[in-house]
């Protein structure tokens, strides 16, 4: 007896977009064998995807909306009015570059000022460490990659926010400082709030990856870049271009760097999701 094959595209969509359910996939195949039509299979697959993902998709839209609102919340202890008085960083210098990566949150010092970047950095270090461990000891690392990456990302976020607090304390414009009350209280509060902001993005990112809605890490990285299109960094960059402050060579370099960074983060996110989230059979 030859087995008939259901539409491959529908099967592919079910596997990649549907909620993981081997029993349902098997049932669909078994019933398709019993002289069901392609139209029936397509109908069933599309309904299974929609029914299985509708709640998740709604929650994800809600989560992204919440994050967008969070971008409007300035970090505590910062004189927001004073920040608006100074000129924004140029897209052509390193501060402007990091501002672009954070979707304009860095120069605005919002609770998401650090963005998802510490998680990306920690994932790179975690993957490299896991690779080296496997090579040297010929066995899988004893600590889970995810736990190791999370810890490292939070430590990096805390250190970066401390550096940012110290940097902000030294800045002033027209005789007024950016920080309302400099000192260790401000530094610790800024560290706690920015680390919590990044931790919040990491939680949502993991949630998206776990539910197979997409690669959370990459989605948040891309959404930060996307936010930069609508917020200050990219419109400011084009204004600099029109004014002749940025040359065409510099423009080509920035575009190349942006594409290269996106490709690098895509590769890191892919390997991180594969190694930190997918179940592996016991050895």
């Amino acid at each position: 007896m030859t087995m008939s094959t259901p539409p491959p595209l529908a099967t592919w969509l079910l596997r990649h977009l549907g909620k993981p359910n081997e029993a349902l996939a098997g049932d669909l195949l078994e019933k398709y064998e019993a002289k069901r039509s392609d139209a029936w299979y397509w109908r069933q697959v599309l309904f299974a995807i929609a029914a299985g993902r509708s709640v998740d998709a709604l929650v994800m839209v809600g989560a992204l909306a919440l994050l967008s609102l969070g971008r409007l919340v300035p970090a505590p202890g910062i004189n927001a009015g004073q920040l608006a008085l100074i000129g924004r960083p140029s897209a052509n210098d390193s501060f402007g570059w990091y501002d672009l990566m954070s979707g304009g949150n860095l120069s605005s010092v919002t609770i998401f000022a650090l963005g998802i970047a510490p998680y990306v950095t920690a994932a790179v270090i975690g993957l490299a460490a896991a690779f080296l461990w496997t090579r040297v000891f010929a066995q899988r690392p004893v600590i889970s990659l995810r736990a190791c990456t999370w810890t490292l990302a939070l430590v990096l976020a805390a250190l970066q926010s401390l550096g940012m607090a110290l940097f902000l304390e030294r800045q002033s414009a027209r005789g007024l400082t950016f920080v309302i009350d400099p000192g260790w209280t401000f530094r610790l509060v800024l560290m706690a709030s920015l680390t919590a902001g990044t931790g919040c993005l990491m939680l949502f990112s993991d949630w998206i990856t776990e539910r197979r809605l997409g690669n959370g890490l990459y989605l948040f990285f891309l959404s930060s870049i996307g936010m930069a299109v609508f917020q200050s960094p990219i419109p400011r960059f084009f204004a600099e271009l029109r004014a002749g402050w940025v040359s065409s060579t510099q423009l080509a370099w920035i575009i190349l760097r942006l594409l290269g960074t996106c490709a690098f983060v895509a590769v890191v996110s892919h390997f991180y999701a594969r190694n930190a989230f997918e179940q592996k059979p016991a050895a």
Partner: protein
Amino acid sequence: MAGRATLSNFELMVLLVLMRLGDGAYGIPISEALEAETGREVALGSVYNALERLQKKHLVSSSLGDPTAERGGRAKRYFKVTAAGMREIRDARRVLTSLWTKIPALAGRKA
């Protein structure tokens, strides 16, 4: 009534079909039985969604069968009503019957 599971009409129908099918209840026979009763096509995805909700409420339990070639090497998942599920069915019947008999225009008529 705190902590009690609430059943949708579709979930109650799935529970009743599971009871009728007994040990051989998996996705296809469940959807076919529902199609036969309702006269409409029932999507397997909606059946599995209802079964997942019932499992979360501990009203249904499941176990995996053996993988078969006709299913592309995938196993069937068999479902069974739990003791809590049985209590829920009896309770739903009691409430629905009581409501039904209190409507004079419908009392005594066949559904």
